[in-house]
Each structure stands twice: as structure tokens, then as C-alpha cells.
């Protein structure tokens, strides 16, 4: 089955049993695809607009990368939570943050299974 569905923040949070660290101002944001990476240049190279980033990195540059690349939401794996100053930065830039207990492989698999496609390599 080729996934081709859009999902909302609430649906992603449910699928990934995630804590919402920064909620969305706009609950209707529709995520069209997903990108899993710890290398920010890979994200900047391969990402597509309106995507969710699944990552294990909690550095401030992750928020900045999302802002620059137009990524709509970030999910941290392994229950990772960034420092408060980074959470505040995401809130200010209106980038929702989630934290899931799953590893990157499982989190990606669950979203794929739910119909969310990956970012295509152009």
C-alpha cells in the first residue's frame, strides 16, 4: 500500500503515544509527509514542505532547521525532551513539538502504516 494521506497533530500524537511539548496554534495543520533524520543537512536536502521531522537531536539548530525548511512539526524519539529555552524558541516560532517513547524506526513505521508518505528524493 502506498501511503498518501494527510494527518493532523492530534492524530500523530495518538499514533505515537506522544506528549505534546508545544501545541499548535492552528489545530487544522495537515501534515503531508514525514522525514526521519539526525543530520540536519539531510533534512535540508531532502525535505518537502508541510512535513513532520522525526529526530533524536534536541539541539537549537533542529528548531532553526525546521523554521528555515518550512517543516511544520517535530517529533523527538526515545522520550527525549529539549531544554526549556529550546521549547520556548519553538513556541515563539510556532513549531509544535512532540515527544514519543518509540525509537526512530518504530515511530517512522507507525506513521507510514497510518498512511503518511515519506519525503521523496528529487
Amino acid at each position: 500500500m502506498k501511503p498518501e494521506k494527510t494527518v493532523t497533530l492530534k492524530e500523530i500524537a495518538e499514533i505515537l503515544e506522544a506528549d505534546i511539548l508545544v501545541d499548535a496554534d492552528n489545530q487544522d495543520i495537515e501534515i503531508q509527509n514525514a522525514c526521519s533524520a539526525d543530520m540536519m543537512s539531510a533534512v535540508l536536502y531532502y525535505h518537502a514542505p508541510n512535513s513532520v521531522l522525526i529526530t533524536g537531536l534536541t539541539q537549537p539548530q533542529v528548531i532553526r532547521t525546521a523554521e528555515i525548511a518550512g517543516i511544520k512539526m517535530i517529533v523527538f524519539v526515545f522520550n527525549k525532551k529539549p531544554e526549556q529555552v529550546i521549547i520556548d524558541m519553538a513556541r515563539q516560532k510556532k513549531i509544535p513539538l512532540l515527544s514519543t517513547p518509540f525509537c526512530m524506526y518504530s515511530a517512522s513505521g507507525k506513521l507510514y502504516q497510518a498512511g503518511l508518505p515519506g519525503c521523496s528524493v528529487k
Partner: protein
Amino acid sequence: MALNIDETIEQKFQLIGGNFNNAGESSSQLKLKLTELGADEDIIRRTAVATFEAEMNVIIYAAAGWLHYSITPQYVRVRIEDMGPGIEDIELAMKEGYSTAPDWVREMGWGAGMGLPNMKKNSDEFKIESVVGEGTTVEMLINFP
């Protein structure tokens, strides 16, 4: 679509090597400016990504540098010059996946060897000059459709 501006808009930022907390700020400001001016969404994304990669290279590798942008009705030009170690083999550095980044840089999520190729991919014109021991200058031009 050309931008509806009367004169060239220019801005210059100083970049400090190792300042990771503020890294990307000038790219964010350029993105904001292009958004304010009503530039095409794809152009904004390409400019922001290319500029951010160049800015991060200065933060990671150089002691300091300058980022200068100019926006005309027809194009946006970004010039980044640094006082860094320089690049020995530019052709090699342009290869996807080639990187000289040490482990601490990789642990922060950089050094995948995609930075320079990504700058080139997102620009309409891309120029790079480097002198080992002196520094590197990158100039990128993105045309408004």
C-alpha cells in the same frame, strides 16, 4: 514574478564562529524579509536553505565571517565570506557526502557532506572561492521567476 520594490534592499550581518545558539539568525531574517516582500514561496525556501547552509559552515568552521544580501526586483544575491581554514580541494568538497567535519560537529547534526551541494542545488548561480589559511567566499544568486 519580479518583486515590486523601488530600490535594492541590502543588509549585512557579522557571523561569529562557534556561536551555535544564534546560528541561523541572519538566514531567518532574510527569509522574513522575502516573506514581507511577497516573494514566491519556493524562492523563499530555496534562498533560506542555501543561506542557512552557508551560515552554518561559517559558525562550524571559521573564526568569523560576514553575510551580505541584496534584493533587487529581479533576484536575491547572498555573499558569505569567512576568515576560516579555507578548502583545499573544492571539487572534492562539492561531492555529496564528502565532509571533513569532526565528531563533535556530527553529534550536533551537521557534517553530512551535503552543505555545499545543497547550496548549489538551491541557487541559480553559485560561485565559490577559497584560499587555504585565509578563508572562503561563497556567492549565490536566486532569480525571481
